[in-house]
C-alpha cells in the first residue's frame, strides 16, 4: 500500500538508516536519498551534537523515527516520562509514523537493551495491543510494530508468530513494519517457511518494510545488520511488495558500516524488485 493510515498516508521510497559514520558525507555532499530512518533513542537527549546534526538533516531530508525501547510486550505500565521524551522528538522530526518492536526488554525498571521474544498467547496480545493504543493516543502519531528476529520459542505459545502479530495489530488497530530479514532469520532458527509468514500478514496494514543482512553460524543465524542483503531475503521482499504494493523500504546497516555509497547502493537494489513487481502487475 503506497499510502495508508499507518504511514500517515505518505508515499516514501527507499531510505537508509542514519548512522554516525555517514554524518560528514551526508552533510557535506547532500546526496539524494528518499528518506532516513533514525533510532529515536540516539536523539532523545537534551542537547549537543546529536540534535544539531539531526536539525541539519531535517532541513534537507525526510526522517522517520524507529525506536528500540518502548517494549510494547512488557507487562509494566508505559513510562510517561519516556513517552514525553519521544513526543518531544516527534515534534522535532515531524515523523509521519513511528515504529518500535513487538517484543519486551525491561522488568522492574531494569533494561536488557535487547529485543526479547514474546510468548505468543492471546493474553499477551491483549496487553500488548493495549500498550500500543495508549502510546499512540499519547504520541498522536500512527504506530507500526516490527517483527523481531528471535532465537528462542516458548512452550506456552498458542499460535505462530505471524498469527500473534495479526492478533496484536488487529486489536491495536496499528500498522506493521515488516522486517523480511527478521522473518528469514527466525524462519531458519525455528524451522518454518518464511513465505507462510509473508503471506500471512495483513497487507493493508504494512506501512514500511525493513531489509538487512545477518550472520550465519553453524547452528543458528544472528541478526547482526553487518552484511549486504542475501538473495533469499530479497525474494521475501519481492513477495512482500507483490502483496503490499510499493511500500516505504529501509535498509538497516548497523555494524561494520561501509561507505555511504555502498549502503545506499545496497538499499537501491530494492528498485529492481519494485519495478519487476509493478511490471508484472501491469501485465495482469
Amino acid at each position: 500500500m503506497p499510502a495508508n493510515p499507518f504511514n500517515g498516508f505518505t508515499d516514501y521510497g527507499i531510505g537508509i538508516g542514519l548512522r554516525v559514520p555517514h554524518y560528514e558525507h551526508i552533510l557535506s555532499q547532500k546526496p539524494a536519498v528518499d528518506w532516513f530512518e533514525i533510532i529515536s533513542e540516539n536523539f532523545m537527549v537534551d542537547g549537543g551534537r546529536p540534535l544539531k546534526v539531526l536539525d541539519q538533516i531535517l532541513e534537507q531530508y525526510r526522517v522517520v523515527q524507529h525506536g528500540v525501547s518502548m517494549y510494547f510486550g512488557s507487562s509494566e505500565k508505559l513510562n510517561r516520562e519516556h513517552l514525553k521524551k519521544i513526543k518531544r522528538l516527534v515534534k522535532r522530526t515531524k515523523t509521519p509514523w513511528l515504529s518500535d518492536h513487538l517484543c519486551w526488554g525491561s522488568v522492574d525498571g531494569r533494561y536488557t537493551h535487547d529485543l526479547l521474544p514474546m510468548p505468543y498467547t492471546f493474553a499477551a496480545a491483549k496487553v500488548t495491543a493495549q500498550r500500543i493504543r495508549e502510546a499512540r493516543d499519547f504520541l498522536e502519531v500512527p504506530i507500526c510494530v516490527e517483527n523481531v528476529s528471535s532465537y528462542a520459542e516458548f512452550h506456552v505459545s498458542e499460535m505462530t508468530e505471524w498469527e500473534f502479530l495479526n492478533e496484536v495489530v488487529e486489536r491495536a488497530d496499528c500498522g506493521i513494519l515488516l522486517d523480511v530479514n527478521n522473518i528469514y532469520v527466525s524462519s531458519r532458527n525455528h524451522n518454518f517457511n518464511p513465505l507462510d509468514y509473508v503471506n500471512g500478514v495483513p497487507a493493508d496494514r504494512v506501512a514500511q518494510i525493513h531489509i538487512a543482512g545477518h550472520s550465519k553460524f553453524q547452528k543458528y543465524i544472528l541478526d547482526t545488520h553487518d552484511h549486504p542483503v542475501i538473495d533469499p531475503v530479497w525474494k521475501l521482499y519481492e513477495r512482500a511488495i507483490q502483496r503490499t504494493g510499493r511500500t516505504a523500504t529501509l535498509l538497516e546497516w548497523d555494524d561494520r558500516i561501509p561507505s555511504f555509497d555502498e549502503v545506499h547502493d545496497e538499499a537501491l537494489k530494492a528498485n529492481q524488485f519494485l519495478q519487476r513487481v509493478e511490471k508484472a502487475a501491469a501485465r495482469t
Partner: protein
Amino acid sequence: MARAVMRPLSRGDGMQKRWVDGRPTRAVAESFIKPNDRLTSFERLEIYNRQYWFRIRDCFYEDYRGLRAILGDKKFERLADEYLARYPSQSYTLRNLGSRLVKFLQAEPQWTRPRTKLALDLARLEWAHIEAFDNEARPALKLEDLANVDAARIRLQLQPHLTLLKLENVVDDFLINLKKNSGLRSEASNAMEQTRHRKKTKLAHGLKRQTNFLAVHRYQDGIYYKPLESGQFLLLSALQNGATLEKAVVKLATLKISGNPGETVGKWFANWAALGWFCGLEK
C-alpha cells in the same frame, strides 16, 4: 527469562550451568523454552544471555577507555562485570550505564587497588565527558546581564553540561591522547553484536600525581577540559551548589589571588560568560 538473560556469564563466557537455587540451569531453561533440532533450550537461552553481556560490556568498555588503560584489561574486565551485575541498566539508553560507577568505586576500592585514586579520577572525568556530550545547553547569560545585580541575593546557575572536577592526578592530557584515535561511540540499534576482538590495552604508566581542577564542558559542540585555578574552582563550585554570588565570592577571601583580586575575578567572570557557562539568575 530476564533474570537468566542478565545473569553474569561463567568464566568461558557461557551461561552458568547452575541456577541461583542450585538446580541445573538446563532444567530451568527446559521449563519454558522449546529446544529445536540443533539447539537445546539451554543453548537458545544462552544466546540471549551472551548477547546481553557482550552488548553492555562493549558499551562500558568504550565509555571507560581511560579507566581500562590504567587498570589493565583483566582487572578492568573483572571490575566491569562486577559493576554491571550490581548496577544493571535502569535507563532506556546505554548512555547512562556508568552513572553509578564513581559511587561503586568509592564504596569498593578493592577493584582498583593500588590505583584507586587514579581510577576514581578517570571514572569522574570519563563520566563528565559523557555528560558534556549531550546534556542540555540553556540560553547563556551575557556579561551585561550580570551587571548591577544584587550579589547578596542573586544565585547564578551553571550550564547542565558543565562538570567541575577536583582531581588528584593529571589525567586530562592522557585521556585526550587516548581518545584521539578512538572510533566513534556506538549507537543504539536493534542489531545483535558478534564478539569483538579488542586490541589489548597498553597499561598507562607515569601519570603525574598533583591536585588539579578541571571544568569539563561543551562549547560549539566540542568537548573541552579547561584547567581551573583553585580559586576559580572554589567560586564555581559554590555557585553550582546554590550559594549567592556574594557568598561564593567571600569564599575566595582565604586564598591568595595574584594582582588586583577584583580585576582578576572580573576577568574570570568575563571569560566564563564568554564560554556561556551561566544560564540563569535566581533571586
